[in-house]
């Protein structure tokens, strides 16, 4: 049983060995000439301005969290939309996707409860001025 994994093991060893050997050869044989200009961080030809470690306003964090909440809201809407026919039908659907049993408001009401909770959240955030930048 274990023998059948031997090729896979060989492959992993070969891959590691090949990559390692090439890096090692480059390190040993390659010429190293460094200069101040070569050590600079290089991004698409733009010259760096200042340190990357600056203080960000905590407001970015706040906006990111708020974004996350409403992003997830949208993410939940997709599966709900694709299941909407099943959710609003008591009984089976026929091949065309029409409801054979009695139609219900269950799916609609369910999602509106969820949206209602988030709307309360939005109202709260608004009143607390978390949406104002200043």
């Amino acid at each position, binding site marked *: 049983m274990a023998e059948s994994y031997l090729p896979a093991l060989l492959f992993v060893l070969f891959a590691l060995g090949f990559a390692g050997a090439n890096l090692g050869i480059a390190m040993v044989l390659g010429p190293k000439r460094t200069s101040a200009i070569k050590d600079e961080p290089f991004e698409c030809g733009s010259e760096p301005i200042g340190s990357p470690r600056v203080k960000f306003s905590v407001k970015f964090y706040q906006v990111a969290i708020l974004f996350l909440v409403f992003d997830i809201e949208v993410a939940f809407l997709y599966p709900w939309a694709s299941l909407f026919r099943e959710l609003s039908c*008591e009984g089976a659907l026929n091949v065309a996707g029409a409801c054979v049993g009695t139609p*219900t408001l*269950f799916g609609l009401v369910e999602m509106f*409860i969820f949206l209602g909770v988030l709307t*309360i*959240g939005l109202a*709260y955030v608004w*009143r607390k001025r978390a949406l104002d930048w200043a």
Partner: protein
Amino acid sequence: MIAFGPEASQPETLGRGAQALADMIHLAPMMLVAVWSLLQLLADAFSDPGTRKFERRVALTGLGFAAVAAALQLGDVQYDAGVEVFSGFLIVDPMSILLDLTVLAITAGTVMFAGDFARSHRFEYGEQEALLLIAAFGVMILNHAGTLLALFLGIETMSIAVYVMVGARWNSGRSSEAALKYFIMGAFSSGLLVMGIALLYGATGTMDLAELSQRVSPLFSGKGSWGAAMTDIVSLHLGQAAHPDAARDRAIVALAPVALFIPGVLLVVAALLFKVSAVPFHMWTPDAYDGAPTPTTAFMAAAVKLGGFAALLKFLVGTLQTARLVHHPYGWATVVGILAIVTMTVGNVAAIRQKNVKRLLAYSSVAHVGYLLVGIVAAAFFYVDRAGGQLTEVDQVLWSRGNGDLAVASVLYYLVTYGVATMGTFACVAFYGAHKKEATSLHQWAGMAQRHPGIALSMTICLLSLMGMPPIAGFFGKLGLFRVAMTSGDALLRWMVIFGVLNSVVGAAYYLRIIVTMYFRPPLQGEDEVEVLEGHGARVVVVVAAALSVLAGVGARPLLDACRVAAAGTGYRAGSPTRLERVTAVRDAIAARGEDAPEAEEAAEAEEATGAEPADDAAPADVPEGEAPEKPEGEAPEKPEGEAPEKLEGEAPEKLEGDAPAEPAPQKPAKPSEPPRP
């Protein structure tokens, strides 16, 4: 919820909408708390700053409504066998209703002084009440949990709100430190919990606790896959297997679920023990309890622990009842039993050395977890029919199950009385100190009894309850736990009881030290003099908690009965006829005892305490209820605290009269009960 209206008007086919509506009504207390937390958030957002009183009133009204809804469910026989709602995701049974009422009372108690405390210490924030309601909602999910997912959801809902409340005191570095520690450790334990749930699901293919308990026993039984694997393994060892490879593969396949299941159980148990802060997982407790604002500490010590124990009862006692899973070498009960001994010892020994009252109470709450775990292990030992030996006769098995129920009832009684007493002590800590200067150092408590005699007396009663002094509730809690554990012949349980009793003595040392400092040291003078919190909230909570502790001790019968009903049939699936039978049997026994008092089988000491009751008028409201054994009895000990805040709302029943005078003359309700104390 109102939008479900059209659905409800066609009851002939209980469609999805109508079913959801019916489930919502079963869960009314919980749903009220959830909806109210949203309303609370809006009330905070749309009211002007500086309206603390208004927000407190809103929160107490919501909690009052929820308490009324829960109290109406308490005596309802419809829930006796347990009702599954949302296809078994949650379960409504007498135990969950009792715990709900307790949580609502604890939350109401916290709301009473949380706002005052925040204002006095200058970290007022409007979300406090909403967060408390959300945390209470989380605990209630745990009380009702019917699946592992509900367990996880409840723990997260509860914890996330509590993390915020722990760190809410933004002008204190210790609070932020506490929040960070609690959050990181808590998030890690949630990770363990999820991993454990995944393993359990992998092993059994179900999240449902009742289903899980049924699928576990074949895994571990001699006739199931365990037995088959053992047969194969033995034949391999003896070299007698006809096809060794096939036998080995069979054994591996048969044992694979077991190999997933045992680590899964360990991970889930570790995560739950973290939440109740049992010993190897208690490191965060002193720091978090000390750094958090005191009302939050009170809520954590009382409600969060209660939620954790509800989860432990459901997961360990209610689900894992296979003998191989309970006893050593693979069993959780052995592990939990040893941890219980370590927990109570470490908690008590560490508490002795504390000079800070808040840390001292934090360690004392760790010690109490140890006592409570004794009841959990005892219940499990009885439920697996191995109380000190293999039971064969039907009546032995019945005896064992009955004792298992009694152990669960003891745990519930202890949880309720511990919650009330802890609430009182922390309310007193919150009361003592104001204007950004907390008086948590023990030397500052010197002579407190001279300055605030009523509060000091109430605090003393709460501490005596935690210590386990006879006429007060804590004593009956400990007595119940230790006695039921001693009924079993098992050596581990006996050792646990021995350590429990020794630890109670050790515990008395530090509780008495606080009392002695309050009464027999000269008070601090000059600018060292401690200021106390403005507002009546904290005072009311301390006094009501003390009164309830005395009431639940002197008139222990009603609460004990409520706990027995709540605990009956814990080992059986919700909604099963056996469970209904057991609950009905307990209800009948209680009703029968009400008719002819002499043949009372349980709780002789409660009887004797009730005999002493007419002598003191501490509990005038309790006497008539002792005669009507059915519904009101269970509510009696619960009502006052849950309802007391409702006086704002004017909906309070007659019980209030017992508590209302407590405010102007704090020592009044507690005092008459002093004489019987030996």
